[in-house]
């Protein structure tokens, strides 16, 4: 069979790669002693030195070239179209928003601070009207001032999904849930600013009128999809090839999949920007198709950091942990890795059968399959990522996942099975992406522990590039009998809404591109989300978030594996490095600097 | 080149110890051995003969009797192009026009090849390079030995093609071998061999690959050309019919040795070796009546690795049980003179052989 041969080859390839990695280690690091946790001779700040705190801020010097590398180019550099987390992070170099995340480590990074605007929103009308005043001295890369109309036009572009597909559509959903506006390209008004829910009474003022209050609206305005775009510079679908800069850097050259170079935008004024420090003179990104090569270049010091911020690959990680621990951070990614039980597939319509799987699974072995405590993350006990307000981490563990039942509780599981009416267990299918070896490993681990409680699970490895079409279609899931789906999810913005709305709200069940895999139709949860968006005070929001999480866990729709962590590399030469919850625990790019600009 | 020790007794025609022979070509005690995994293959094991200019020697024998190996030995083609660890071992003496070839530097022998001595091969299709035109190949042969420009050499090639009877030679000169018929190819091959007016021409089975009518034409051509050029010619064949037309002398080889040698009419009409009788019997003769009595030589040629002691032909000899006096059977029969310039190597007495020939063999032929 073809598949078996392929996997045989892959095994060979992996074995060879491992052998090479071993050689690389010796070749590249011959004689290098291991670093301790408190920094190294080479100047690296130390293990976890930039995790939720700022490392070596004082050593930063202006100038030099900051060198990114990546195994994956952005989906688009168009602020309207990009959806990859690292793109949002990087886009702050060449785009500004009304408000943005604070350039501070950890939780503080997820708090908002004014950027183009003089202050945070003046919210009136019961949370339905947001008013901003623009700063003085804010300019485009050609020196012209950024106006409120530019901001409105940039936001309007989100409506042109037919041309500018790919990006988040929260703005559209919040400002025009009925979809009355057809986007600027089909706009019949002369100035193409026909969106009624945004007013620009003058160049400096912009007013948003929400049809329905949403307490996360300002968080959504902090997304790069709310960046200003100037109409005469809008090249529509090709805008991503050369976005017109409003930030401290502008595109010098971009070759998709190959390289990207940003240089200083000389029209940008430090005085107009309280957020960005703009230390380096130049920023380069080089793309690789082989993650090992990227890691090798990082280890070798040819590059400063990975733009993708998805963690090092296994071989590079092993070498780095052994030889260059002081260059590493081990942050929480904001992702939760989990299995989800579609209620359309029997017997997962019964909560007791779902509980049986959660109770019977060997959570330690699942964690090990994910890569262990460091590379994989802590055992996940509930469905709210630790970076989201209202999260309780492992303290909330209704099924004893990291406690009593961490190695699987056969007795409890069998009790649940009996309650479900399946005392002798049942058969089901685990769906897993075939292009994620780690997920396949977790599926196998789960399969093994389910066997002990009489659940006979088959593993179906489906084409991972077709994820949306295969598991995003509830009818297909039911047809294939996928009782257990292995997936992962991270927040678009760090709130319960930015994480859980598409997963848990019944309104988000779709016939294609569905993300509510469990098909949760719980009026309480829907109601909590409705309540959340109208609650404006932080404490109230936090409380509701916690409550939603509890409801989801009580429904036993999910078996969380890990609160994901990853190993992230920073070069010796990087200064002012810190992780931020704003971008799921990755380094905040915009204020990175170099210690030695000449290097 | 590996020289074998000359300790072995000289076999065949007694050779003079004086180094400078008077004949144009004289081969003395030639041995060509090939080491193989199974043992030493003694393809030629002590062969001696002489040949004068203007004369033709026919070497006759079955395949594997060593006749082609002999001709390649004379041409020095066992040592040229020997690669790898295993090399042919050659010993003896080959005197060509006063020069001993085996002890000459290989490059000197190379210079003689194609000029003083040349060769016509059995299968002209495989012996001609398929990627070069006939003309290119003849021109090359000419220019190795003559410092002339290509035009002159080409004129010479056309002239030679004309001489060997190829029609429209100025056009055919640009043809490739595969565009020629079998007979034409052999004519072209002959033209190439004669382009440098060689004094010694070796024709190795020149007609085997051709059909009967063409065979006769080619043999006529060789004979005519010999007269014209006055070369010494060695014709190697398994077919006595071929040498009957051409040869002055005949040398019959068996198992790497000479078993009978003499003037053509003697060998044909008074053969004194049972193997020769066998060959004569297996020869289709147009001038005789008894076509139905064709007698092939029974059995297969001997292994050249483990040559049996005694007479090599013994296992196949129909007269092996003829009582023989005063002869040790395990000793090889020496060539002995059986007539004027006529030698044969057989354990039977001359009288026995004369009687068998005249009473038993000749009438059946």
């Amino acid at each position, binding site marked *: 069979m073809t598949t078996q041969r392929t996997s045989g080859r892959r095994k060979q390839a992996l074995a060879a790669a491992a052998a090479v990695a071993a050689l690389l280690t010796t070749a590249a690091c011959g004689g290098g002693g291991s670093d301790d946790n408190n920094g190294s001779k080479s100047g690296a700040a130390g293990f976890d030195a930039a995790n939720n705190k700022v490392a070596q801020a004082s050593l930063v010097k202006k100038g030099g070239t900051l060198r990114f590398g990546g195994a994956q180019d952005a989906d688009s550099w168009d602020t309207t179209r990009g959806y990859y987390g690292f793109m949002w992070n990087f886009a702050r170099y060449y785009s500004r928003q009304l408000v943005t995340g604070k350039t501070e480590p950890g939780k503080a990074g997820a708090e908002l601070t004014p950027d183009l605007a003089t202050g945070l929103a003046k919210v009136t009308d019961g949370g339905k009207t947001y008013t901003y005043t623009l700063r003085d001295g804010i300019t485009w890369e050609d020196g012209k001032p950024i106006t409120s109309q530019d901001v409105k036009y940039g936001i309007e572009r989100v409506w042109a999904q037919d041309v500018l597909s790919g*990006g988040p559509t929260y703005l559209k959903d919040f400002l025009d849930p009925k979809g009355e506006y057809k986007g600027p390209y089909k706009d019949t008004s002369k100035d193409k600013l026909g969106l009624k829910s945004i007013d620009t009474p003058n160049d400096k003022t912009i007013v948003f009128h929400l049809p329905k209050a949403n307490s996360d609206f300002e968080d959504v305005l902090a997304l790069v999809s709310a960046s200003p775009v100037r109409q005469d510079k809008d090249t529509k679908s090709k805008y991503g090839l050369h976005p017109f800069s409003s930030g401290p850097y502008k595109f010098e050259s971009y070759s*998709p999949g190959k390289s990207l170079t940003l240089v200083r935008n000389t029209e940008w004024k430090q005085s107009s920007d309280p957020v960005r420090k703009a230390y380096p003179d130049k920023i380069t990104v080089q793309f690789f198709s082989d993650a090992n*090569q990227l890691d090798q270049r990082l280890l070798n010091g040819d590059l400063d950091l990975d733009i993708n911020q998805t963690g090092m690959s296994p071989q590079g990680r092993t070498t780095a942990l052994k030889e260059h621990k002081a260059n590493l951070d081990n942050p929480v990614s904001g992702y939760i890795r989990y299995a989800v039980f579609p209620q359309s597939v029997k017997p997962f319509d019964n909560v007791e059968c779902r509980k049986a799987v959660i109770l019977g699974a060997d959570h330690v072995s699942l964690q090990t399959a994910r890569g262990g405590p460091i590379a994989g993350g802590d055992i996940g006990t509930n469905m709210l990522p630790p970076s989201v307000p209202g999260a309780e981490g492992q303290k909330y563990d209704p099924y004893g996942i990291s406690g009593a039942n961490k190695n699987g509780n056969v007795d409890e599981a069998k009790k649940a099975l009996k309650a479900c009416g399946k005392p002798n267990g049942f058969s089901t299918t685990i769906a897993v992406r075939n292009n994620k070896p780690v997920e396949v490993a977790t599926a196998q681990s789960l399969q093994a522990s389910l066997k002990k409680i009489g659940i006979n699970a088959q593993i179906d490895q489906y084409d991972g590039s077709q994820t949306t079409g295969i598991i995003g279609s509830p009818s297909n899931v039911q047809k294939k009998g996928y009782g257990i789906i292995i997936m992962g999810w991270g927040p678009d913005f760090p709130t319960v809404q930015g994480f859980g709305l598409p997963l848990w709200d019944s309104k988000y069940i779709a016939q294609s591109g569905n993300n509510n895999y469990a098909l949760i139709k719980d009026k309480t949860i829907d109601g909590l989300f409705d309540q959340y968006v109208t609650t404006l005070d932080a404490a109230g929001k936090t409380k509701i978030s916690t409550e939603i999480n509890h409801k989801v866990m009580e429904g036993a729709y999910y078996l969380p594996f890990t609160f994901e962590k990853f190993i992230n590399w920073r070069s010796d030469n990087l200064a002012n490095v810190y992780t931020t919850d704003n971008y799921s625990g990755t380094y905040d790019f915009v204020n990175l600097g170099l210690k030695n600009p000449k290097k | 080149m590996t020289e074998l020790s000359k300790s072995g007794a000289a076999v065949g025609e007694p050779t003079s110890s004086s180094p400078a022979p008077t004949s144009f070509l004289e081969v003395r005690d030639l041995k060509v051995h090939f080491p193989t995994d199974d043992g030493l293959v003694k393809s030629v094991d002590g062969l001696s003969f002489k040949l004068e200019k203007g004369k033709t020697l026919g070497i006759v024998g079955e395949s594997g009797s060593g006749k082609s190996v002999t001709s390649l030995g004379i041409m020095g083609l066992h040592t040229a192009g020997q690669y790898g660890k295993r090399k042919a071992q050659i010993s003896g003496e080959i005197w060509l026009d006063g020069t001993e070839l085996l002890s000459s530097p290989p490059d000197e022998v190379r210079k003689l090849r194609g000029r003083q001595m040349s060769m016509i091969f059995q299968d002209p299709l495989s012996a001609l390079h398929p990627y070069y035109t006939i003309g290119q190949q003849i021109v090359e042969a000419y220019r190795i030995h003559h410092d002339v420009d290509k035009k002159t050499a080409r004129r010479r090639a056309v002239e030679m093609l004309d001489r060997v009877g190829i029609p429209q030679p100025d056009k055919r000169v640009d043809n490739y071998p595969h565009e020629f018929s079998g007979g034409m190819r052999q004519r072209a091959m002959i033209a190439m061999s004669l382009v440098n007016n060689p004094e010694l021409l070796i024709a190795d089975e020149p007609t085997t690959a051709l059909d009967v009518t063409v065979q006769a034409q080619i043999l006529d051509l060789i004979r005519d050309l010999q007269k014209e050029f006055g070369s010494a010619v060695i014709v190697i064949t398994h077919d006595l019919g071929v040498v009957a037309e051409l040869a002055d002398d005949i040398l019959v080889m068996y198992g790497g040795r000479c078993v009978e040698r003499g003037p053509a009419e003697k060998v044909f009409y008074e053969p004194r070796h049972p193997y020769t009788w066998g060959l004569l019997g297996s020869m289709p003769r147009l001038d005789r009546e008894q076509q139905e009595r064709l007698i092939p030589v029974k059995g297969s040629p001997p292994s050249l690795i483990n040559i049996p002691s005694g007479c090599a032909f013994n296992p196949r000899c129909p007269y092996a049980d003829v009582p023989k006096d005063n002869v040790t059977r395990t000793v090889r029969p020496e060539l002995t003179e059986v007539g004027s310039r006529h030698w044969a190597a057989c354990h039977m007495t001359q009288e026995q052989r004369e009687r068998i020939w005249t009473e038993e063999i000749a009438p059946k032929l």
Partner: protein
Amino acid sequence: MLAYLIRRLFAAAVMLVVIVMVVFGIFFLVPKWAGVDIASSFVGKQADPAAVEAVRQKLGLSDPIYSQVWQFFKGIFVGRTYSGGGDVTHCAAPCFGYSFRSEQAVWPVLTDRFPVTLGLALGAAVLWLVFGVAAGVLSALKRGTIWDRGAMVVALAGVSLPIYFTGLLSLAIFAFGLKWIDAQYVPLSQSVGGWFGGMILPWITLAFLYAAMYARITRATMLEILGEDYIRTARAKGLKEQVVIGKHAMRSTMTPILTMLGMDLGALIGGAILTESTFNLPGLGRAVLDAIRNQDLPIILGVTLITSLAVLIANLVVDILYAVIDPRVRLS
């Protein structure tokens, strides 16, 4: 010879049309029959129906099959304009499709990537021809000796070791370990030295694999040719051994070598994925690898077509060369 050439060219042209249709069929029609909506694979995470519909409209995915094929063919010769959702995208001739993922016409991507791959393949080919053939000839002439055995063991290693192994190893040693070379791709137009420095390791790595194969083929062929009657004839003419080997034997030996070379070069144009990915060379192989990862169908389609074209042209060139070398071929 002319008739032969015309026949070959005609066959190649027919083949090309067939290839385009088959490839097109695989990429656009088979998913359709299989019930997979191609349009939705062109848009992102939050699949907005408007976006899907616009792509469908732009690509004419709802049109009948023959019309889609016709549009594609027409695009190659006269260019194509995609319009949908108020945006008009023009793709100039020769239009081999347009990637809505990276917002680029496919043809410029191909012409941008092609020289890299071509440079990689040709440079490596020069190396492997020189070293592979030399080693093979030497091995044949010294058959059975330690040279022969040694060369063939190295050749076996070359054939057996995968590119990603030898590639990463050479990188580890020469680029990261000894730091002799900066293994970064630099376009030829930018710096000849830099280009050479960036290409030398990929060349050597790729050439090592192929040189090994060529050495083995050369050795076997040479041994066979040396046993040919016409080689004996050449010696009988009194030719020097160098001429016998260098001219008569080499010409015959080169025939299968050239055939292989043509095929290999053709295949390498599209098949240097491993090498390009290992050494991060921005060639066609990497383009297609990235395209597969991003599900960028038009790019995959374009590269596949160009690759088929390259193989086809290579075949044609081989056929012609064959006729030049071997007069017997011209007849048939």
